């Protein structure tokens, strides 16, 4: 299967090559997928790239995302910008502003990216009207993972679709001695949970507060309502969450110790690795939406291209962007990562997890309804400094007994302070 696909790909690429390339296309991609299934996925990209006639090289930076950015900055400052870097969200726009990024408009027009890429992503990939990046996948943030045994224990058959329904089931779980909400104790996990709640309260609120950073929305009543809901859920967490990573809550949920866990779809990779099974150990659904509409918080990994002086690297960029945008790569890359392709025209086969297949359907439905938003907590919406400032308030709220009104006011203040 893979072989056939690679062969096919090599064919198409060879065609492209025959048309334009004199030098052997080369690339060196800087990214943070250094291990496990992530690394395997990126190696697939390398294989496909080589099959297409390119010479593949990569620099994987382990650890936090900021390590990758530190490396990028060091490389740019010392005068050797990498030909391709994994970057996301507004960061792409920031780098585009420096004038150091490459222009992929011709390739995009040729391959019709505008049509196939999820609409919410297009503006991210072409921040100043030029395509400077190619999206690799779409991660959904607003997943609700539910423990099947826990659901059965309280006699719930349907997963909740609004926060009121959720609160009712969670209340029952608490009575049964099950921890209703599993949670980790790092600011980005806090932020993830809170943005899921905000989207559930109102998509409009999410856009105004987390994308436009409208001060009224940040301290308005709806925001207070979101904090109220968060306060309720904090009450349903166990005491031990601070400092916990994101995997431990997943285990608690899948083992039935906890009822729900709100977290992004990279959880699928870990659950596969730990041997948990869909519909046996866990269930999945989009997080509750009070509006009744489908909701979607989107996160996407993408590759940004920096201007190169050497012909072989310029050719290599085109070939890499083209390879990334092939449906085959988009499928192979996302199967184990838990995410789905960034192209909307790809159907997912049986090798994908049921939750991933549902992801694609939900994305289409939400796109239809106009409720797709970019993730604030995962660097897709606002610059890092605002994100950190909001995280500060959210994490403070969770670990203290701050009231919702104060919290909302401090959200607005935090944003003002960073301007």
């Amino acid at each position, binding site marked *: 299967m893979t072989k056939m696909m690679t062969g096919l790909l090599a064919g198409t690429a060879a065609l492209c090559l025959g048309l334009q390339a004199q030098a052997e296309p080369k690339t060196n991609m800087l990214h943070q997928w250094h291990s496990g299934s992530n690394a395997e996925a990126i190696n697939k990209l390398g294989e496909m790239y080589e099959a297409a006639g390119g010479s593949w090289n990569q620099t994987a930076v382990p650890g936090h995302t900021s390590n990758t950015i530190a490396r990028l900055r060091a490389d740019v400052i010392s005068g050797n910008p990498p030909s391709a870097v994994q970057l996301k969200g507004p960061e792409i726009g920031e780098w585009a502003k420096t004038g150091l990024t490459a222009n992929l408009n011709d390739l995009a027009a040729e391959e019709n990216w505008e049509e196939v890429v999820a609409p919410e992503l297009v503006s991210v990939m072409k921040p100043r009207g030029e395509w400077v990046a190619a999206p690799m996948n779409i991660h959904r943030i607003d997943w609700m993972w539910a423990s099947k045994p826990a659901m059965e224990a309280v006699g719930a058959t349907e997963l909740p679709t609004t926060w009121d329904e959720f609160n009712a089931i969670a209340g029952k779980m608490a009575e049964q001695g099950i921890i209703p909400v599993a949670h980790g104790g790092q*600011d980005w996990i806090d932020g993830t949970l809170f943005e899921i709640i905000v989207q559930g309260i109102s998509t409009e609120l999410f856009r105004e507060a987390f994308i436009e950073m409208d001060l009224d929305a940040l301290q308005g009543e709806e925001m207070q309502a979101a904090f109220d809901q968060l306060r309720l859920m904090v009450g349903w967490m166990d005491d*031990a969450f601070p*400092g916990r990573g994101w995997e431990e809550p997943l285990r608690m949920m899948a083992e039935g110790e906890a009822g729900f866990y709100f977290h992004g779809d990279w959880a699928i990779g870990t659950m596969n690795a730990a041997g948990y099974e869909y519909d046996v150990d866990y269930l999945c659904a989009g997080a509750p939406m009070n509006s009744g509409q489908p909701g979607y918080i989107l996160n996407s990994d993408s590759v940004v291209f920096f201007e190169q002086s050497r012909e072989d690297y310029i050719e290599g960029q085109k070939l890499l962007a083209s390879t990334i945008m092939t449906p085959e790569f988009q499928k192979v890359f996302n199967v184990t990562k838990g995410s789905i392709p960034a192209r909307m025209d790809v159907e997912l086969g049986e090798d994908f997890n049921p939750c991933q297949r549902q992801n694609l359907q939900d994305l289409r439905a939400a796109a239809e309804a106009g409720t797709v938003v970019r993730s604030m907590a995962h660097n897709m919406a606002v610059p890092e400094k605002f994100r950190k400032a909001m995280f500060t308030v959210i*994490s403070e709220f969770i*670990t203290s007994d701050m009231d919702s009104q104060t919290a909302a006011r401090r959200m607005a203040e935090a944003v003002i302070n960073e301007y």
Partner: protein
Amino acid sequence: MPSAPHAADFRPRPKSRARRISELVPLAVLLPTLITTGIYIFVFVIWNIYLSLTSSTLLPVYDFAGFDAYTRLWRNPRWTTGVWNLALFGLLYIGLTTLVGVVLAILMDQKVRGENLLRSIFLYPIAISFVVTGTTWQWILNPSTGLEAFVKQLGWQGFEMGLITSRETAIYAVVIAAVWHAAGFVMVMVLAALRGVERDLVKAGQIDGAPMLRIYRRIVLPAIWPVLISVLIILLQFAIKTFDLVLALTHGGPGISTTFPAIFVYDRLFAAGELAQGAAAAVWMLIGLVVVFLPVLALNWALKRRKGGAA
């Protein structure tokens, strides 16, 4: 009668060439270090100070934007909390690590059997990186995975250890992990120094009838003060650079209760792309360092003066 010597008789004598050349040898030995560390310390710091005065964000821009970055920093709770945490942590960490290290060294100095093994045991934590240290202690201190769960399994259901889950106490969890990491190293340094102290000093103290504790406090420890100064400096620099340990242990939480200046600097410089602000924060750290470091230097100097005076 000999004529009384007058101060006017005394004129400093110029040094001979051979003498000057022989004095150049140690200077020549130091020269590479002087040049490299000179660049490393002064040029880099000045670059950093300059950066803090520019409007740099994603990449360095060489313009002048004033001192805005310096003042706005103090409105940021992550920064102010971090500074406070560093002060508290620094004090506890340095105090406790020195105490534990010195006590262990003194205990190890009592002709203990299996000294080699014990020393290696106490020393190994320094071989473990901060990330692994933080992660492992996170597991141990977390109520649901660590000691608390373990003790509960043993049957003591009431046992609670919410050190890292409370905003007020999480900083102490960082202290524990950090002390664990460095105490053995301090022990080894002090032990090495203790072994250099002449036994007769101790014997003299014993003959004077002083109890062992006082002998160590009054005779032995003052004799190894340069090493203690080293220890102090080492711990101080650890404290100031506290970064990966906290990220792995508490991720700066709960809330922002265990955030640190170094984390803030790194966030600003690399994650947030606010070079000027990050640089300004770094300059504040250096200023703080000078403020803390001066008394240490003064102490060093005073001790040396005293020693020099006695000789």
